[in-house]
């Protein structure tokens, strides 16, 4: 069924009796051309582009829980193309371009809202870094504007500009960045993939691989063995746990990131603001809640919940930036487990096992990457070659000395 404004009116007038389920709930077949493990944003996007762009439709997405129950439904929904390094920026620029056309492409309202992202700076050195980053962005076809203090004041007059320790000197504005309705991204891709014949199998956990003579022949699951020509892991925070079953050790640690939402407020923040002197970023959802977050809890964990010290740190940073937050009441907080890689950048690659592919290491920036990750993973699965904007995302890059370390902090996953 195609969705449109006309359809909404027709259904409204006929008692909403014509809506049908958005995807099927099929039984798994014995064999597929491609099995994708993980029904998060990236897995579903991969299935969608495999079917739509490459015509590969004999595909299953195996999800251990329900689709959209992982990080794709837990993140703070920020999309942006504001990376510094050549290995990254063309990829994220492709992603943002795909976001810009996504809703028309998959005929689903994902509420893509290019409301602008403002990265604040507080020192001269930070201004220099922002200028450099802005130039790198522009060179790669993205957009960036350097604002001085007055420029920032005009946008967000309520911030603490003359804070004694962290005065706001200006900001780097990325107008095409913004937010998206995260669940709708999972649902839109799922529907688009299902429509083209992809089987989405929920409550189906992959528990092992069948590997013979260096070739992957399929996966063991809680619903039995399913064979495949190609198996594509795409399980975000569970990467090490899943790939360990294929005997692989990864350059990844799992960490929890927390996020928070306040009670609904009148419109206050119409874009995304990031604090440059502490770990805090904030936007306002269309329902009015302030959505904000900060840093990792810093230790390895698979528990989808964080601890109180980070809550305190995030709120303190928020108060340093926007003192009026002190009056706001918190509604909810939650955590998601992400795979933090050794250089803060992801992987989209073949493995040393024939027919086994790996996508992961997305850290806390993987939501914005969803369309390009799916696009490039599908390209790799269908053609056997890395997509031109994903050539740096190889598993052996540390061995070759080609880490993509945006922050330059070295192989320490919790610092990226």
């Amino acid at each position, binding site marked *: 069924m195609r969705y449109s404004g006309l359809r909404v009116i027709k259904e409204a007038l006929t008692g909403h009796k014509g809506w049908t389920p958005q995807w099927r709930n099929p039984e798994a077949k014995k064999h597929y051309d491609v099995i994708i493990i993980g029904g998060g944003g990236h897995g579903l996007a991969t299935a969608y582009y495999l079917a739509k762009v490459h015509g590969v439709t004999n595909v299953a997405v195996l999800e251990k829980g329900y689709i959209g129950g992982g990080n794709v439904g837990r993140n703070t929904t920020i999309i942006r193309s504001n990376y510094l390094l050549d290995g990254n920026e063309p990829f994220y620029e492709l992603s943002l371009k795909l976001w810009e056309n996504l809703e028309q492409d998959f005929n689903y309202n994902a509420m893509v809202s290019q409301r602008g992202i403002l990265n604040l700076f507080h020192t001269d050195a930070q201004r220099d870094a922002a200028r450099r980053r802005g130039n790198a962005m522009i060179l790669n076809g993205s957009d960036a504007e350097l604002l001085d203090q007055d420029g920032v004041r005009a946008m967000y007059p309520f911030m603490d500009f003359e804070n004694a320790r962290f005065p706001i000197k200006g900001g780097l504005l990325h107008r095409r960045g913004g937010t998206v309705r995260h669940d709708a991204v999972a649902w839109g891709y799922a529907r688009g993939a299902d429509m083209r014949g992809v089987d989405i199998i929920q409550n189906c956990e992959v528990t092992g691989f069948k590997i013979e003579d260096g070739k992957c022949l399929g996966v063991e699951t809680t619903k039995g063995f399913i064979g495949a020509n190609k198996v594509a892991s795409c399980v975000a925070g569970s990467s*090490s*746990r899943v790939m*360990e079953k294929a005997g692989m*050790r*990864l*350059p*990844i*640690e*799992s960490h929890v990131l927390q996020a928070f939402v306040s009670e609904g407020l009148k419109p206050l923040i119409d874009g995304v603001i990031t604090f440059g002197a502490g770990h805090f970023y904030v936007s306002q959802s269309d329902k009015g809640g302030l959505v904000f977050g900060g840093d990792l809890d*810093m*230790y*390895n*964990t*698979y*528990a989808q919940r964080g*601890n109180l*010290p980070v809550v305190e740190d995030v709120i303190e940073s928020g108060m340093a930036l926007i003192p009026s937050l002190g009056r706001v009441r918190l509604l909810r907080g939650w955590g998601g487990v992400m795979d933090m890689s*050794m250089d803060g950048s992801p992987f989209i690659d073949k493995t040393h096992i024939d027919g086994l592919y790996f996508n992961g290491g997305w850290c806390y920036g993987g939501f914005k990457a969803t369309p390009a990750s799916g696009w490039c993973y599908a390209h790799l699965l269908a053609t056997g070659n890395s997509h031109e904007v994903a050539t740096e995302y190889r598993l052996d890059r*540390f*061995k070759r000395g080609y880490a993509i370390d945006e922050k330059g902090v070295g*192989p*320490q*996953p*919790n610092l990226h």
Partner: protein
Amino acid sequence: MIINHPILGPRDAQEFTYLGDASLIERPDPQAENADETFHDYVYLRDNPAGEHQELWYHEQGDRSWLVVTRNTLTHEITDVQLARDAARARGRSK
């Protein structure tokens, strides 16, 4: 989380910074033939288990000792804490 420091007793985890897997104690032999390979694995690859994990914590805001903490990454339960010095010696590092 509370870390039961072997010398100072129970301390809030906030006083510590976290480094990572305690296998970092076992630096490979830089003179070995395959040092390239072993250092790559040592620096970049991690077991990253779901369950019991031995890890290095540094008591930055305390006595500045390094500890090896055994902690469950699914429940955050801490079952053992040792001075990294003792753990390293037990693994045959330094004399």
